[in-house]
């Protein structure tokens, strides 16, 4: 088991001539929680999109489990063990809570077209197994009693947690959360922190973008700071809080949160 789960090397990405990300490189160590912070427009979400395959880097490498995953389609990256949530909630809003979680199971299931049309015994067995599995994930985030509600009927915080359950259902080794506490109240944020620690206990590595500094300092083992597409600092929360460049960068903008 290598200690390094994911690493980025000299990654560049431009959008219409604008450098969104330049020369980014860092490592994610297994079973840790890594936070990526920085003011708006620093390129944090772009980094996440580069890792998950939603966009392709112009140059540079993304290595996951010692193998390059640069340029792979998002669905194969999920299959390799990286799952994500979105900055703005992107649930399948008209489908039920359980169906949403089952979407995460998709990549671990095998039933093909023919097995599905004929409803072969193997397909039925698999369905039963993964429905149980999905319910387990719902229980993990505390939504099991709402399994048949339409996703858009849930409260905001519940929707965030459903997104996490959905990502967990794909059996990831790395879970990427894009502003998981965004729009949550204090109570919900505390519960989210507990949830992330629970995830870490399951031996799942977590990467997250967050603007809530106290939350980041609380849950993260390591923090990467970005500004203007560049990585400006990297280290433990303690180190980052003392880092002069980080303080400057954050004083330039609003201290509390990016927006």
């Amino acid at each position, binding site marked *: 088991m290598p200690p390094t789960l994911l690493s980025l090397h000299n990654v560049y990405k431009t959008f219409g001539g604008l450098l969104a990300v330049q020369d980014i490189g860092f490592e994610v160590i297994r079973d840790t929680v890594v936070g990526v912070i920085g003011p708006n427009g620093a390129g944090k979400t772009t980094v996440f999109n580069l890792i998950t395959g939603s966009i392709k880097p112009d140059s540079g490498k993304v290595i996951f489990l010692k193998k390059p995953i640069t340029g792979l389609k998002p669905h194969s990256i999920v299959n390799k063990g990286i799952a994500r949530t979105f900055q703005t909630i992107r649930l399948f809003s008209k489908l039920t809570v359980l169906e949403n979680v089952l*979407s995460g199971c998709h990549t671990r299931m095998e039933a093909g077209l023919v097995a599905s*049309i004929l409803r072969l015994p193997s397909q039925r067995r698999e369905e039963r197994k993964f429905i149980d599995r999905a319910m387990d994930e719902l229980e993990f985030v505390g939504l099991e009693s709402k399994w048949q509600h339409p996703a858009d009927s849930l409260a905001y915080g519940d929707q965030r947690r459903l997104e996490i359950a959905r990502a967990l259902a794909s059996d990831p080794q790395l879970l990427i959360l894009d502003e998981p506490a965004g729009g949550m109240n204090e109570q919900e944020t505390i519960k989210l922190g507990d949830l992330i620690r629970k995830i870490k206990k399951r031996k799942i590595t977590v990467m997250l973008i967050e603007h809530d500094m106290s939350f980041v300092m609380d849950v993260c083992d390591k923090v990467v700071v970005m500004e203007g597409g560049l990585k400006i600092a990297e280290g433990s929360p303690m180190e980052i809080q003392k880092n002069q460049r980080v303080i400057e960068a954050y004083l330039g903008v609003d201290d509390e949160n990016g927006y």
Partner: protein
Amino acid sequence: MSDCPTRKWPSLVGTGAAAAAFLAIPLFFKAIGLRSGPYWLDLLNTVGLYTILALSLNVILGHAGMFHMGHAAFFAVGAYTTAILNLNHGWTILATMPAAFLAAGLLAAILAGPIIHLRGDYLLIVTIGIVEITRIALSNNIFGLTGGPNGLVGIARPSLFGFRLSKPQHFFYFIWFMVGVTYVMFYFLENSRFGRALKYIKEDTVAAESMGVNTTAYKLIAFVLGAAWAGVAGAIYASRMRTISPDSFTFEESVLLFTIVILGGSGNQKGVMLGSFMVIGLPEIFRGFQDKRLLVFGAALVLMMIFRPQGLFPPTPARVKLSDAWSNKLVEPATNSESDDG
């Protein structure tokens, strides 16, 4: 929903009874000596054929959410495959059906590759283009096989174990058997990993891809499957009509199918069936309006969409049965307020 298992049985019995009653219609017509019986059966056969087509389109349009308005092209390929194999090579109709399936599916696979990524309305016009190109190709006697504007004549009727289907009541059982097969097949599909993947794609393609669904492949397979099944419907059509010509596979035919799926409730198979009855059956029943019936039909479409924009039967949440362990676990602390929806 904890009462789901108990509720399922009566509904199954009800469905069975309804199906049996439906299948007894020809006997009933005969019993009361209804002179117009063959007409009504023929109408039901037409409805049945369109149901098969619409259910196959439903996989593409209703489940996967791809705006496909060229379904008649694949219907045509199936019909012509059957006709050509039967007339030129003496194949029996039943033997041509798998060939029709493959031919339509193959064409769909070739065509869909480069266009499958197109967004909604762009896909719509491209599929219209496909149906137009197909019709023009058939009219121009492509490969010297399609008989040009005259089409092909003298296609055999299907034989089952030496029994030749010729009367409307024979076709009634044949066609509605195929409707049943189609319905069950696509019902199983809808409630499986594959069907759910299509639902995710329809809801949000980007999120589906990010959850590990190979969206391009699934769209492609759904398209090919729906098209291939339309080919089977084409085989049935050719053997029922015994003569086919390009005018039977126009853009308007595709529009009709599109309308059936949306009107019925895109994605809901029961709705699609009811849609076929409404779109194909009602204009026949309204024959009293004579030349005004299409006027009435057009107005009815507008009204129907205004009052039921989701279609007659909007898609229902998936029926999922939990394992006993989970059902028991949820029932124990269950608050009653949560068990009465669904």
